[in-house]
Each structure stands twice: as C-alpha cells, then as structure tokens.
C-alpha cells in the first residue's frame, strides 16, 4: 500500500492524465459527476454518489458503429475504428465497479461487443472507498463492500491522505509509473485504513436502507412474480420516462439507428434505449408490451428475476441508489422489491 498527501494530488492527476484520458468526479454547477480532468477541474472525492454512473465510459450513450455510402445500387460499409485511447477512471465507487462486472456478463459474453471490450480493456479503474455513504446507498444488499471498492487499484481517503493499493497487473503497471509521487504506507497507515473501513461499514448499517436484503426467492418464482398483482399498483404512477435506466450502472438496453445524411451517406450508430420507452418493443403489427404496466414490470423483472436466473442469482442492481434520487415520482427498485416480497411472502 502506498499513500499520497493531499498537497500532491494535483500532481497525481497530472501524472495520471499523462498515462491516459483521466476521468474523475468533478463538481460542476453544484453537481458532482465524472468528467475528463482538466487543470481547473474541481475534484470532489467526498460525494459518494455521482449524478450518473460511469457506465458511459464503456457503454457510450451514442456509439457510432459504421458508415455506409450508397450510390446507385452499390452499398459500401466502413466500420468505425475501435477506440484505442487509454483511459483512467479515478474515484470510482464500489457500486459502480460492481456495475461493470454486471455489464461484463452481458457485453463480454459471446458474441463479444468489441466496442465495449476495447473501451474496457483500455481503461484502468481506480476505486475509492466511500467515506460518507448516503441514505440512498444499499450496496451491502448485494454484498458489495463500499469499504473495499476493488478495481485495478483501490484507494481510501483518510483525512488528508489518499491510500493506494494495486489489485491487478494493470494496476501495478500504472502504480509503477507513479512511483515518484507515491510513498510506501506504514503499518500505522494500514490501521488508519482499517479503522475507516470499519467506520464505513458501521455507517452503512445505520442508514435507512442499511439492513435491506433482496430475497433470492424472487428469481425462483418467475411466473408468480410476473403475475403478481402489485405491478398494477406500482406502475400506476410511473411516468415512463427513462431517467432511472439512463443513470443506472447496470441497465444496458440499446437501440441501433441510422442517420441519413446527404448524397447517400448514412451513419449507423448505437444509442442508449430503455425498456420504459413505449416504442421499445413495438412492431408493425402490435406490441407485446402494450402498456405502462408491462414496461414497468419488464424493467424490474429483468433486474430482480431474469438476470439472477441467467447469472447464478446475481441481481442486476448494485445498490448505488441513483434511481432513488432521480425518479420524478419516487418510484424505485427498493420499493418494488419490498412490495413483491410482501406479496409473495418471501
């Protein structure tokens, strides 16, 4: 383990930025979100939950896929070059890191999504333990430890020192390049970090959702959950916006669209989509998910039932709590899971 004092952080950012495009939590307009680092960036390492998850780093909101050129009856396709720029994300919280493992299951499964993989492989992730978890946090529900965030490197912020520990080869390589800035941590330091870890876990348990558990039974009762009567009550007030899906670190629905330019030039791109959108499953002759209820149900079935069914009980949720914070009508996965559990007596 290494450490680096606050005074030297600007140098650290600079050094990291030399190794690749650096993203870190920045305070802009009173809101903290990941942003490319620049000299005047106001880095915010205290806010636990950034406005959006970092998924767009690997799963871009808009990803150009290919360019077509048509002329007469001829069609030529030029695939988009894969991104090759190394990137470094600093200050990623345990929940978001866990989110990547969930996205990996989808995008790295055969056939691999090469755009995702390229971005993923090009990136070194530096985790940061959550000094101040918030009332919307419930990562412990999924056995995610906010006190040991994981990543290629994981870090802790204790008072004015940042503690630094490589966890992967990629992490070690990067750490080696920063040798001049990092100093070896002492046993004393290790104790400080441990103490912080304990405190984080304690704080989490005191939070309103600190003891929340999602029942693994849900995934075992697909039909019963699907047919539960609570969907109607729960979905009645959903506005069908897709805010929750866009801030969610695990939601990964996408659309492939064409943009026709002039003279036969066509850009095909992928963009985020949401199962909450009315036209998501609409076909020329009907829509299997006719209404709000069906769309709402799909989203939560996917997170609470289908995904765990497919992936050994893993919920497609990491407890970051962003959906709790942004829903215009305060609907969220916690409320849904609780209602379902009550309804199904699980």
């Amino acid at each position, binding site marked *: 383990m290494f450490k680096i004092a606050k005074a030297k952080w600007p140098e650290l950012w600079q050094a990291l930025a030399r190794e690749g495009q650096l993203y870190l939590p920045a305070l802009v307009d009173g809101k903290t979100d990941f942003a490319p680092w620049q000299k005047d960036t106001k880095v915010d390492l205290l806010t636990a939950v950034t406005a959006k998850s970092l998924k767009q780093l690997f799963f871009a909101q808009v990803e150009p896929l290919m*360019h077509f050129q048509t002329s007469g009856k001829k069609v030529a396709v030029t695939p988009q070059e894969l991104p090759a720029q190394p990137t470094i994300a600093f200050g990623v919280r345990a929940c978001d890191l866990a989110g990547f493992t969930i996205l990996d299951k989808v995008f790295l499964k055969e056939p691999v999504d090469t755009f995702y993989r390229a971005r993923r492989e090009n990136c070194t992730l530096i985790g940061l333990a959550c000094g101040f978890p918030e009332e919307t946090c419930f990562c412990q529900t999924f056995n995610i430890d906010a006190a040991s965030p994981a990543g290629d490197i994981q870090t802790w912020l204790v008072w004015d020192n940042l503690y630094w520990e490589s966890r992967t080869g990629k992490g070690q390589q990067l750490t080696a390049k920063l040798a001049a800035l990092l100093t070896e941590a002492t046993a004393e330091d290790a104790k400080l970090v441990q103490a912080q870890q304990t405190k984080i876990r304690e704080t989490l348990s005191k939070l309103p959702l600190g003891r929340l558990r999602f029942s693994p039974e849900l995934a075992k009762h697909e039909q019963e959950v699907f047919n539960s009567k609570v969907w109607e009550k729960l979905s009645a007030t959903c506005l069908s916006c897709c805010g929750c899906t866009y801030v969610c670190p695990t939601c990964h629905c996408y659309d492939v669209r064409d*943009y*026709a*330019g*002039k003279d036969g*030039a*066509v*850009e095909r791109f992928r963009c985020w989509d949401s199962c909450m959108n009315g036209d998501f499953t609409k076909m020329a002759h009907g829509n299997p998910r006719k209404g709000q209820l069906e769309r709402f149900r799909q989203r939560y079935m996917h997170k609470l039932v289908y995904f765990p069914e497919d992936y050994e009980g893993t919920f497609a949720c990491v407890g970051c709590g962003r959906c709790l914070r942004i829903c215009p009508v305060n609907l969220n996965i916690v409320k849904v899971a609780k209602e379902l559990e009550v309804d199904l007596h699980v």
Partner: protein
Amino acid sequence: MLGEKVTVADKTAAPAPFEPKIVAFCCNWCSYAGADGAGTARKQYPANVKIIRVPCSCRVNPLFILRAFQRGADGVILCGCHPGDCHYMTGNYYTRRRLTLLMSMLNFMGVATERLRVEWVSASEGARFAEIMTSFVEQITALGANVKLRDLRCKK
C-alpha cells in the same frame, strides 16, 4: 465551359468564395407569384436562393426551418402574402405569431436571428422580391457559414 474554367482557376489561387445556401419558403398565391414576377421582369438575384413552394406561409412548420439549418442552410427566408391579404384569409397572421416566437427564442439561445427572415411579398412585387433576396444573400454572405445549428454527422 467558361464558367467551369474560372472555378478551376479560382481553386488553385484561393479557397472558393463562400456561397451561402439559402432556402426560401414562398406561399403559392403571393410570394411564389412574386418570385415568378421577378423572373418575368428579368430582375436578377443571386442563384443561392432556392425556393420551396408551400400553399400558404402558415404551412411552414418551424421544424422545417430548423431542419434546413440543421442540414446546412446558411439562411432561411419565409415569404407570405402581406398581412390582411392572405389567400386563406388568416394564414399569415398565424405565421407571424409563430415566427415571432421562434425568432425571439432563437435570439434568446444566441443563434444569429439575421439568418432567418420573414418578409411579406405580394404577387405584384417582383422587383421587391429580387431586392429582398439580393440583400438577404449579401447579409448571409457577410455573416459567413452557419455553424450553430448544423448537424455534423455524415459530414465527411
């Protein structure tokens, strides 16, 4: 051809001069007839202006105008009958309100509102039509290419 030769010579000497793309929406009854009048009277105006015929100025959806800018127009001009003279009686009154609000909003968003103009041209005002178009093209040429509302996808 002579014209082509000149263009080629220009290219080697200096970058081609900026030729703005101007879309003019003209109502069938007054302004389009006015444009025809300009032609009949052989009133010259720049070739940059391309006219789209609509039945009435009130057929022009602000979306069309935005789309024109998005697709690369440097200027858009909407022409209709003089207020009170609309073939459909009230069409241009609505146009006037719609475009007033659109102009004001574009201005509010810092988009050059000189790039959008609304003019009332009657069927008998052929000469005026040519004058308006000439001055508009001059104005847009002076402003240069529109970059603010342009969509740059497929721009290769």
